[in-house]
């Protein structure tokens, strides 16, 4: 193999230049600036002069009731979406894996919501959630449930958001679960059948442990994705974070501080806290992912 030299390095730079310029200007530089911005405590935006640095923005977040609400709602959202979504998508993936015809057809059907615009489909769901004429309340009326004010009652804002997110994300999880299931060697199941293990036993003693790396991967990816929920809220509640701010999440908070209030320092600090959460989860994934033996 060729050794690195000045000539090859120059040549490589030529190939790398287009990507590197974009990535440095719009990816790497902002990571640093954003961190510095979170430390701006006295800042003249119009003239781009910083008078003082400090931790005031983080202290502000520590005491800001809105930010606490945003964190709380985001955690509720994550806890509401991830476990249910994983349980349902694993169940469907198991059904699809059961050597049936039309597997490809069903996989396509379940995957469709994932490729559609979050904003557009949220507007469709807005119509489905309509209190008087919405489809959902109509179906519920068959079971004698009186109309629920999905989008206007603060108590129901988060559940509505969670229902929409679960529906939209199922297909992605199903596809990954299917790939994981197909990696489990058939002979384990054959051996279990010879031992007359029940379907339930086969699931708990073969599928579940052998699938654990996939399950773990999906949980982490879903948690990270759910932490960043924004588009759904904006479209579902018409540019507001739910009735009486009942669906305010961390990214929505960042958006408001930045776009509406022009408080760049506070918004950057909040973004860095989000980064910290995502970072810890990613490290956890790398750490456990490496340690976990595939049995």
């Amino acid at each position, binding site marked *: 193999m060729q050794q*690195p*030299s000045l000539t*090859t*390095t120059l*040549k*490589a*730079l030529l190939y*790398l230049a*287009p*990507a*590197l310029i*974009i*990535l440095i*200007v*719009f990816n*790497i*530089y*902002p*990571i640093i*600036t*954003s961190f510095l*911005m979170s430390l701006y405590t006295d800042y003249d935006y119009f003239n781009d002069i910083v008078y003082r640095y400090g931790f005031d923005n983080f202290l502000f977040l520590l005491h800001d009731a809105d930010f606490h609400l945003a964190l709380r709602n985001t955690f509720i959202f994550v806890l509401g979406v991830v476990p249910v979504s994983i349980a349902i998508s694993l169940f*469907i993936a198991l059904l699809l894996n059961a050597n*049936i015809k039309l597997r490809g057809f069903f996989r396509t*059907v*379940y*995957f*469709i*919501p994932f*490729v559609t*615009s979050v*904003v*557009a489909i949220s*507007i469709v*769901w*807005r*119509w489905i959630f*309509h209190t008087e*004429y919405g489809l959902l309340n*109509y179906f519920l009326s068959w079971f004698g449930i009186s109309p629920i004010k999905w989008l206007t009652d603060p108590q129901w804002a988060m559940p509505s958001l969670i229902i929409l997110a679960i*529906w939209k994300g*199922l*297909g*992605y999880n199903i596809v990954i679960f299917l*790939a994981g299931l197909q990696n489990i060697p058939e002979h384990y199941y054959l051996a279990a059948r010879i031992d007359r293990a029940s379907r339930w036993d086969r699931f708990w003693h073969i599928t579940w442990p052998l699938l654990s790396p996939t399950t773990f*991967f*999906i949980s982490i990816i879903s948690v*990270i994705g759910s932490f*960043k929920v*924004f588009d759904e809220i*904006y*479209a579902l509640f*018409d540019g507001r974070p739910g009735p009486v701010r009942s669906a305010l999440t961390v990214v929505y908070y960042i958006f408001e501080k*930045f776009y509406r209030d022009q408080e760049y320092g506070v*918004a950057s600090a909040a*973004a860095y806290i*989000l*980064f910290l959460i*995502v970072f810890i989860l*990613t490290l956890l994934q790398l750490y456990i992912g490496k340690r976990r033996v595939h049995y």
Partner: protein
Amino acid sequence: MRDALSKGTIYLLLSLGGILMLLPFAWMISTSLKPANQVMVMPPIWIPHPIQWSNYAEAMRVAPLGRYFLNSVIVTVLSTLGELITTILAAYAFSRLQFYGRDILFSILLGTMMVPGEVLLIPNFVTLTKLGWIDRYEALIVPWLASVFAIFLLRQHFLSIPKELAYAAKVDGCSDSRFLWEVMVPLAKPAIITIVLLKAIGSWNAFLWPLIVTNSKEMRTLPVGLTAFRTDVGTIYELLMAASTLVILPMIILFLILQRYIVEGVSRAGIKG
């Protein structure tokens, strides 16, 4: 006997789930074709009578949906093409060239993948303001012309192409760049199609960034235009559903045609769109 019974149950459950997945789309299309007096009724009407295609024309009349559509097409096509070119060049350098600092550079780039996009939002907005690009196509396209994830995916694919092929080409007097475009790129076609599709879907559906960097009606992309449209028409749901259909349908069609590459790409790399 027991297995046959449970097969039936499996089909039943899968079909029920499938109906739940498709129902919102059916409801959207059905509503988009209804005369106004059949929209807000209980119980709901599923088949509009008569089918009112003019809702689409009406929606396009109320808001410049055609313009939004055009903007979305321009932004999607240019950022996808651009990203593809920067990705192919960079992936080639990372997989085939020996140069100083290669591994460090690659690790740094991979590290940036951990940073959520929301962190980049404000500094990028400031940068674009300084460049005078706010409310122009540049703002919608240029920041998205390179992706570490795409480079990583294609590099992995390039690495799996045997080196002997490159030596043979060299002996035959084939230049490096010709070898890249005429041998490696065609060989990496599945990975490239996956990259293109995921980028196109992401770009078409992007919302937060276009919302922030556009001010005028003329520059809005479809998702941003759709939220403005929703504020304008309020509760005229037949028009809202017609506009939503225009946003959603192109990506569903693209997906149905090329789904193999998307589904395989997702299951191979575990990508979050």
